[in-house]
């Protein structure tokens, strides 16, 4: 069975490494990082992972535009790796005006974006980001969001942009179903990266209630390893159709729906 990782990170964290225990609870611990794309490919080969959607740590640590540029040469000529970029407010950074950003994404094969509003000090709301998020909504371009600092901005953004395609990632290991379930019930285009979905019986309980179409296999590499999420998925006792949805079909559908 093919397995596609919906979210892995290359590049060195300036402190190796800020790890999310749960919202507002970072732990800094040394992990085996993946400085270059080749390091990630080696990890993927070790675990039998087919493809991965990738971001660069410099997008977070240094600057989104700097990190986006750092990612491009890393994954050039590596068809198993797919780029995701990080956005900033178009009102202050012209690279992110939709008329500029979308052609650049198309030219570089970028089908999904990320936002770190707290880190970059802006609000992910209509006042600040409406002109860009409306376009992402219309074109079904996925936006990765993390509640590593808090969940309130995610709930607030979804209220303003209820049809936005969102992938929740890097939420820490504490069980988050009290956040996931309301979001999944309310917003039909919201998906969950399974990288840290290690709550007991988590995947079977979710699939039983909401089906398997909203879960995307992910690793959150290198904060998490491949073995944990892989064995959690394959040992969950799910039907083959559900396994395949989570392992690769859902991410292919979500990314395939992005109209650039």
């Amino acid at each position: 069975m093919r397995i596609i990782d919906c979210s892995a990170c290359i590049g060195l964290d300036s402190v190796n490494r800020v790890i999310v225990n749960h919202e507002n609870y970072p732990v800094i611990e040394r992990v085996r990082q993946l400085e270059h794309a080749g390091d990630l490919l080696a990890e993927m080969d070790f675990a039998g992972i087919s493809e991965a959607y990738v971001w660069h740590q410099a997008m977070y640590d240094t600057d989104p535009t700097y990190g986006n540029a750092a990612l491009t040469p890393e994954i050039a000529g590596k068809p198993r790796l797919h780029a995701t970029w990080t956005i900033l407010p178009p009102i202050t950074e012209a690279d992110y005006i939709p008329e500029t950003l979308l052609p650049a994404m198309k030219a570089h094969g970028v089908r999904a974006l990320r936002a770190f509003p707290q880190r970059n000090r802006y609000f992910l709301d209509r006042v600040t980001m409406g002109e860009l998020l409306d376009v992402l909504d219309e074109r079904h371009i996925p936006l990765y969001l993390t509640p590593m600092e808090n969940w309130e901005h995610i709930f607030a953004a979804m209220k303003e942009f209820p049809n936005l395609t969102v992938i929740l990632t890097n939420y820490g290991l504490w069980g988050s179903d009290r956040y996931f379930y309301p979001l999944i019930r309310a917003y039909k285009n919201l998906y969950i990266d399974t990288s840290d979905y290690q709550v007991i019986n988590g995947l079977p309980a979710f699939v039983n209630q909401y089906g398997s179409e909203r879960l995307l296999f992910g690793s959150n590499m290198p904060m998490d390893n491949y073995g944990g999420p892989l064995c959690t998925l394959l040992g969950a006792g799910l039907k083959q159709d559900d396994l395949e949805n989570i392992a690769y079909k859902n991410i292919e559908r979500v990314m395939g729906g992005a109209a650039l």
Partner: protein
Amino acid sequence: MTNTSELARAYLETGRSQIPIIDAHTHMGANYGTSLSIATADEMIALMDRENVACAFTSPHSALFDPSAMNRELEDAMSRFPGRFYGYFTFNPNYADRFNARLGDILTIPGYLGIKLLPGYHRYDLDGPAYDDVLDFALAHELPVLSHTWGELPYNAPKNAEGVLKKRPKLRLIMGHTSPGEAEAAITLAKTYPNIYLDLCDIHRHNGIVDRLVNAVGADRVLFGTDMPWYDPNYCLGSILFSRISDADKEKIIYKNAKALLDSVPHRRKA
């Protein structure tokens, strides 16, 4: 896949561990911080059967957070499921007299294995005086002590563990979670004190951590742990199966080390 582990390959084919698991760090019951679809002793046993978990060393949330409940839920579970649940007697230092009065239960009630301390949550230093009696009792009876440890936080950082070990260098101390944020300090302590065990609970998920601990202290003192029913044992198992250590070392961590620990406790040998 370039992982040559036969244990990993067998898991991928069957979705189940081919060797039994002993989970050395578990709890039981509902908890304030998360929604758990499996939490009771009966539910845990059903999941353990599915995932080939032979037995669990446990301390229920009721014992950790409700001083009135003491360890009754644990004793009931050990009575109902002998050989499947082994108990850590939870000791709350804020009610030291109450818990000290029951330490003898560890030696007389079947199923008790050792002692559980939760200094960070009880907001009391691991090396503070209220723990003296219970730690001396553990030392005298060679009982393993599982203490929550966490790096760069008060109450249960490695420096607090070191304070305990300087007074009792032969204490059998399981460093719960291996002090995330200060794992290197936990490793250093384990190199200094031969009766320290490093617990994989929570910390196993990080890329390369299992290899790092085994390479530093050897596989004999690393224990499988999950916080079940917080987390699914399959995740910790996967972290081990896809580490870069030998299958022989994986088997030690998954089963043999905890079995040896269980079998070595003197009062259990006499039972």
